[in-house]
Structures are given as structure tokens and as C-alpha cells.
């Protein structure tokens, strides 16, 4: 990483300097619309070389999968294959307008259809819509689908969504956006949904349960069949948060386990790059009875012709056009290159890596719930006998050349460090990471200030987030 400060692009600007080129205007000039023309536009004025250096230097202030290990729990920061990028930039697939006549986009529709079919097979569902643009968007779709299903049966009294206390924050937020109230269900000491608590909330006002499986402790829900039966018993539906699907590829299909609806994160499980915050892609899969309610349009096949169709009782469209199609190309490429055997090997190695790393980390940082984990695990990140907290450990890892794990989540574990190795990391990398954690535990006792004041090697030290929020500076003011 470069540690040199980089000016803002505005600070590199000089009046009259330009980078762009355009062809000469080859039509007559029309008079500009009176009263509608703006006076000024304060954009930077830089040369092409300055521009290239600016963004290149900015890039060098980032950690990324391509440069360092990224053990971020529930984020599945696995390797993003380079062939995906080549695939997504094939001109015949990418330079296509979304409103072109269907006959001129048969290739794109075929790809969407094939991806829908593959996701159905992987998840055990009857229908998939690729439209949601991210995981939370897919969740929102899922909750709206559950709502539409109940309403289609004349059942309007269902108003509460049950959500385990280990859930991602998007689950309650998506439920609230759909107009429902949220009831939190506690976890038991083995990290499962507390069945008694669940049963006591099950009545005819339950829309459904939003269940992450494996959950955010990295544990497979041991009573999953009973949990699904319980919810179905009171007329509710089971929503699956697919953020952790990586552990289940070829191992178990949510549709077979009794889930009614689930969103996929193509940017986690299916190797589309995270892009520093997106774009993601959050297709939603559903069982037979929910298929008519999918958001659309979705791709369909009629004979040897592909078309777009709106499911008959669709909740409607969730965005313009068809979804983050560029991500579909990448995910499809990945699924085709892994095949069924490769996908199962992905889950097996993700789980192997997590259990191996858990065994290596446990002597230094106790594990929150000691069970065989799936693709990730949660450790307590404080160092006993010191005032070193999970945040300090996370920041000190930066100095060792590792991205910090997810920290302080899930909320039910104090000082949580949530660690997801993913299957693409080698044993050597995991060993080095475990060794770094052991060293930090040692440093915490020997030289706590070194850990408190970490990181020391990044472009900046810890930042004043309090002032940033109290006196927000959100734009360059010149």
C-alpha cells in the first residue's frame, strides 16, 4: 500500500486543462433552450496522466482479495476469477440495450435462463427471479412474496416476522420496509434457534421466519427440519438468508430442507467481485406455491426461443430492467467451470478450512460456541487479563498484512471476531493468519499500547469517526 497522502481530484485541477477527446460536431448547431441552460459546473480539470495516476494511487490505498487475505465472516471474500471479467466484457454480451427487440437478444436471454435453471437445481427451488440487485434487495423481494402469498389466500391478519437474534441487520430492516413488525427469537446454548421460544410465538399472525442457515455463528441449524415444520404448522413460511450458501453447495438444498424462499448472493457464493461495496446481485428462489409471485420480468423458454415474462401474480418489478446482468455472466461462468462436482468441493473445502482455522485459533481466542462449524466461526476477540478488545485485535491484523475479520457481529457474542476463510485460501495462508493472531495475543500482554494504537503500517491511523458524524463533511467545498 502507498502511504503518501493523495490530493483530492479537485486539488489537482487547473483551469483549462482537459483529458477528453470528442469528434467534431458534424451537424448544425441548434439554439440552446432559453432559460434552461446552467451557468456553471464545478467539475475538475485534469490531464489524462494526472487522472490515471490519481486513481492508480488511490487503488494502492486499498486492501483487496487480489492483494491480501480477507477473512470476513458472512462476506465470503473468495477469489474472483479473472475469466469472469473477460466473460462480462465480451462485447456481444455487454453492449446490449435492455429494450432491444427480443429476437436480437437471444444470447443474453439464454444466459439468464440457464443461470435461473442452475440456481434452481443448486437450491432445490421451483422458480428463480434474477431481478434483485443485492442481498438486501432479494430479502425485500422474499418478504414481499410471502406477503403476497398470504394476501392471495385472503389471509390479512399476518403481521409479524420472526427473526433469530443472530440474524443480519438487513433481515429486520427488510421486514419493516414491507410493513411488518419484527419479533426476535433467541438462540439456545448450542447456537440453534430456541425451539420453545419459537413455538411460543407461532400463531396465525406469523408471516414467516427469516432463517440464516448456516447461521452467523457458522453453525448448521441442528433442528432445521423441525423449525420448518413448526413454522409451516402455523401457516407461516420459511425465508432463507442465502448469505451463507457457500457451505451448502452440493451438500444440502434449502428447498429440500423445507425453505419456501431464499435469496442468493452472487457476489459471495458465485465469485462476482464485491467492487468495494457493490454491485452485487441477489436473485430470489422460491418453492412451487410461491413461484407465481416472483418479481419480474424473468427469462422463459418457448420451444427454442427465449423470452421475458412476468409471473402471473408477480409482486411487480423491483428495479428497472432485469437485474445486475453483468453479474449473471460472471456467476454463470463460474458455475459452468465448477460443475456439480466442483461446487460440492467448494463447500467441502470452505468447511474444512473453517474447522482447521478454528482449531488453530481456539488456543488464543476462545470460540463462542464449540461445535463443528460450517464455513465460518466466531471467536471472542478480547484478550483475557488485558484491556485489549476485538477492535484492537482487528486493527493490529492490518499490520500483519491481513484484512480484519468481521467484528462485533453477531451481536449475541461479546467482542465477536467472525472469521470466514473461504475455500480458495491455502493451508499456508491460514497458518500465517493463525500465527499472527497468536502473536497479537502475546503482544496484548507484553506491549498493549502497540495493539491499542494499531494499525501502524496503513496509509492512516485510526480515524476520528465521532467528529465525522458530529460535524459531517460530505463534499469537497473548495
Amino acid at each position, binding site marked *: 500500500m502507498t502511504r503518501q497522502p493523495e490530493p*483530492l481530484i479537485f486539488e489537482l485541477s487547473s483551469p483549462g486543462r*482537459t483529458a477528453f477527446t*470528442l*469528434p467534431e460536431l458534424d*451537424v448544425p448547431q*441548434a439554439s*440552446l*433552450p432559453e432559460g*434552461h441552460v446552467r451557468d456553471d*459546473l464545478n467539475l*475538475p480539470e485534469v490531464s489524462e496522466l494526472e*487522472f490515471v495516476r490519481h*486513481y*492508480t494511487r488511490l*487503488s494502492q490505498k486499498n486492501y483487496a482479495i*487480489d492483494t491480501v487475505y480477507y477473512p470476513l465472516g458472512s462476506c465470503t471474500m473468495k477469489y474472483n476469477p479473472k*475469466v469472469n471479467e473477460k466473460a462480462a*466484457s465480451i462485447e456481444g*454480451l455487454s453492449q446490449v440495450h*435492455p*429494450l*432491444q427487440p427480443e429476437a*436480437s437478444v437471444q444470447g443474453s436471454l439464454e*444466459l439468464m435462463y440457464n443461470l435461473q435453471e442452475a440456481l434452481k437445481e443448486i437450491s432445490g427451488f421451483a422458480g428463480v427471479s434474477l431481478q434483485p440487485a443485492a*442481498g438486501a434487495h432479494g430479502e425485500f423481494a422474499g418478504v*414481499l412474496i410471502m406477503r403476497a402469498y398470504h394476501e392471495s389466500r385472503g389471509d390479512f391478519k399476518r403481521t409479524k416476522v420472526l427473526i433469530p437474534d443472530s440474524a443480519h441487520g*438487513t433481515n429486520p430492516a427488510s421486514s419493516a*420496509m414491507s*410493513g411488518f413488525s419484527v419479533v426476535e427469537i433467541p438462540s439456545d446454548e448450542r447456537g440453534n434457534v430456541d425451539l420453545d421460544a419459537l413455538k411460543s410465538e407461532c400463531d396465525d399472525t406469523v408471516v414467516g421466519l427469516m432463517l440464516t442457515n448456516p447461521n452467523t455463528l457458522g*453453525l448448521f441449524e*441442528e433442528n432445521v427440519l423441525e423449525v420448518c415444520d413448526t413454522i409451516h404448522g402455523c401457516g407461516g413460511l420459511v425465508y432463507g438468508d442465502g448469505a451463507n450458501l457457500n457451505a451448502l453447495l452440493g451438500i*444440502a438444498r434449502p428447498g*429440500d430442507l423445507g425453505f419456501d424462499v431464499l435469496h442468493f448472493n452472487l457476489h459471495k457464493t458465485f465469485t462476482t467481485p*464485491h*467492487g*468495494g*461495496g*457493490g*454491485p452485487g446481485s441477489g436473485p430470489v428462489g422460491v418453492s412451487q406455491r410461491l413461484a407465481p409471485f416472483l418479481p419480474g420480468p424473468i427469462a422463459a423458454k418457448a420451444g427454442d426461443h427465449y423470452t421475458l415474462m412476468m409471473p402471473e401474480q408477480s409482486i*411487480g418489478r423491483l*428495479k*428497472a430492467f*432485469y437485474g*445486475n*446482468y453483468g453479474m449473471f455472466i460472471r456467476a454463470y461462468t463460474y*458455475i*459452468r*467451470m*465448477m*460443475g*456439480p462436482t466442483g461446487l460440492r468441493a467448494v463447500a*467441502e473445502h470452505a468447511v474444512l478450512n473453517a474447522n*482447521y482455522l478454528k482449531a488453530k485459533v481456539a488456543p488464543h481466542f476462545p470460540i463462542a460456541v464449540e461445535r*463443528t462449524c460450517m464455513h465460518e466461526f466466531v471467536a471472542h476477540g478480547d484478550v483475557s487479563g488485558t484491556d485489549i478488545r476485538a477492535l484492537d485485535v482487528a486493527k493490529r491484523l492490518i499490520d500483519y498484512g491481513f484484512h*480484519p475479520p468481521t467484528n462485533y457481529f453477531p451481536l449475541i457474542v461479546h467482542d465477536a471476531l467472525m472469521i470466514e476463510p473461504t*475455500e480458495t485460501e491455502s*493451508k499456508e495462508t491460514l497458518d500465517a493468519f493463525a500465527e499472527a493472531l497468536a502473536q497479537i495475543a502475546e503482544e496484548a500482554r507484553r506491549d498493549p499500547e502497540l495493539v491499542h494504537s494499531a494499525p501502524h503500517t496503513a496509509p492512516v491511523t485510526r*480515524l476520528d469517526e465521532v467528529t465525522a458524524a458530529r460535524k*459531517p463533511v460530505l*463534499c469537497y467545498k473548495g
Partner: protein
Amino acid sequence: MPYLPHTEADRREMLSIIGVSSVEELFQDVPTSHRCPELQLPKAVSEMEILDELYAMALKNSSTGCFATFLGAGAYNHFVPSVIPQLASRGEFLTAYTPYQPEVSQGTLQAIFEYQSMIAALTGMDVVNASHYDGATSMAEAAIMAVNVSRGKRRKILVSPCIHPQYRQTLRTYLPGDQVTITGDENLRAGLEDLKEMLDDETACLIIQNPNFLGELMDVEGLANAVHGAGALLVVVANPLISLGLLKPPGDYGADIVVAEGQPLGAGLNFGGPYLGVFAAREEYVRRMPGRLVGETTDTQGRRGYVLTLTPREQHIRREKATSNICTNQGLVALMAGMYLAYMGKSGLRAVAEMCYHKAHYAAAEIDKLDGYRVVNSAPFFNEFRVKCPVPVAELNAALLEESILGGYDLQQDYPHAENEMLICLTEMNTRQQIDRLVTALASVQGV
């Protein structure tokens, strides 16, 4: 197996340290009845083979490179300078996570701060978030924000019928009927005067698109006063966003929230996504805003740095009380839009916008001369305009396609009164020769 680094020796040693004898033992919590189904998927292929498969699919498409393209309607065929994909595809940008750890994310954070600043300048607004999924979802989130600004007391959303039809559909998906009333577009001919009359003390916001979906510049004089007089917010969909290189920004005429589709700023067409939801607002509403915000601050040594800020608005802190459920957004596309604005710069964006304007006006004038065709815009336009055609647009487009011309949008699909009306779009990518070819083709089709 691609991307899996383990050797047989690695696996054996790892299993022994875990204390199990096989990988299968790790999956004992999975019900045996459903464990390890055989997935019916095609078997794995190599990189060479998948690329061949994709090239074959690409051949079943006609890309815009095969056509003279006159189709816009929410997705625009603009030129993408080479520097943008080259730099945005650097692994350090492409494969980074959301910048929750600011010390190792200063590149992404500063680039988004610059994006926010440039969009603020472009729209004339105070604060800009780090993006939504697309223009349509930005608009839906703006409506929710307007309701929240009224603390839920105002639950009527007034929408102009001249907003992109898919945006209005998305709004209705986001806000099912029992939560709010969405009205104003029942009469597809409703103008601003009609909408103003519908303002009342229930109204959370009025949403207009400018230039509107029919390509026309709205007469916004006095509009903000009327909206604010009723205690509501003015939300402007600033599509096509390139127009703001030339036209007055919505901040100048009193908008409270500005949303837009950011795709024209360097993102390419990509069959509809990934695109970019632009979202900007006045400063007084910043704590009601959805989405991520990057702010400037200092580190413990006093050096300037950037962080995600005002996070108590967001789902990972506030859960069901958050301003939105949004988490992952369109970060890389926002980065690219920032790059586009910086690269084109002050004079380049103006030049592109003017070029779109002049090409559209040349094309409109030439088409209007044709027998049977008439430009029917009732107001000035930017780069899209309405043409009344002698035959149904679908028929016309089929004939144009034969000539390798991708014709305009069939307005009659959404506006039944716009019989045989085509919405034609011009960008800097259309040469005069292409325009002349379109005019010739239209003339020859006239007798269909």
C-alpha cells in the same frame, strides 16, 4: 479443480488437526435424508470451453455495435473512455470489500467522497450518498424518505405520469397500497398544473422527471414554491443525467431530493445492469437519508482521511428502525461515474451534453420534414423527442432492424393516447451519416 489450492497432503494434515478422519464427518449436522444430493448440472468445463460457449451466445445477440442506435428510454448509448474500465478493473478496486475498515480502504473511500462531491456539483445539491441500485430504486427510496421527513404524517406520493413507467412500477412495488397512496399518474396526460392542484396537507412529496420520459424540459418556474407551500418535498428524477452538463441543475429550482440513473456516466449498457442509483438531497435532510455516506475526518496524527459516517441511519446499526434496508450498493459503478465526471471534466461534460442536444435537434428537424412524420413535442427537448409515425412503431422498428437500425421506444405501450409515437434518442455516438440513414429508412418505410 479450479481455484482450490489444497493438495491431498494438506487435506490429510488439516483433518488430523481438526481431529476427524474425513470431510464427510464435518457435515453430520445436515439431516442424512437430504445430505449430498446429486446436482443435475452440466459437468465442469475449462476456461477455453466456457469462453467458446459465451462467444456462441454473443453471436445470438446483436450488440449496439451492429446497429445505428436510436433507443434510449432510461438506458443510454454513450461513449465510455478507455481509462475508465482500465482503472476500475484494477484488482485493488474490483476485489475490495465495503470500506468498513477505513484504514485499509482509503482508496475506495476517497474515490466515493469525490463521487459525492462531483454529483453534488452536477445536481446543485448539498449531500449525495454512495449510491442505490439504479434510478428506479433511488426514486422509490426518495418517496420513502419524504414520508419519513414528515415523520409518517404525510402519506400521499404525487407522481407525474411523465416519469419512466418502470420507475413508477418500482415505486408501487416498494410501497404497497396500505402504507401510502400513490397518485397523480392515473391521468396519463396530467401536466404540472394538474399535479399542483392535487397538493394538500397529506402530500409527502411531488415527484417529477426533468427532462421527462417524453424527452421534454419541464416548466418548473414556481413549482418548488407551490410544493413547499403545501409543506411537501419536491423530488426530481434528473434523467438523462448527461443533460445536467448543459441544463440547470434541480438544486437551482428548489428540489429537495434529486435522484437519477447514473448509467450514462461511464457504465455502458450491459442489458440493463449493473447501473447506478444517484441520490442527492438538501443538507437539512441528511439524517433521514438512506444509504451509505462517506465523510472527511482526521486520523490520530491529524492527517486527512475518509470514513463511512452517520451510520446510525443504517440497517447494520438500527435494524428494523433503519432508513432503508440497503447494504451492498453499486460502489464500483459509482467509482466509475466519478471517474467519468473527472475525466470529462468541466468542459467535457458540457461538450457531450451539447453534442447530444445538437444531434437530436438535427435529427428532429430532418424527420419532421418527412411526409407522414411529425415531431410532436409540446416543449423544448434535450436528446429525446417524440415522433408521430404513419404506422405502428413495432412495425416500423422491425423494418428499421432490417436496415441495421435500432429504432426508438414505442410510447404507445405505456401511453395509449400516444398512438404510433416513437421516442427517438440521440447521443454523441450517433454520426450524421447514421442520422441521414435513419431519415432515409423512415422515408422508405412510410408507405408500409
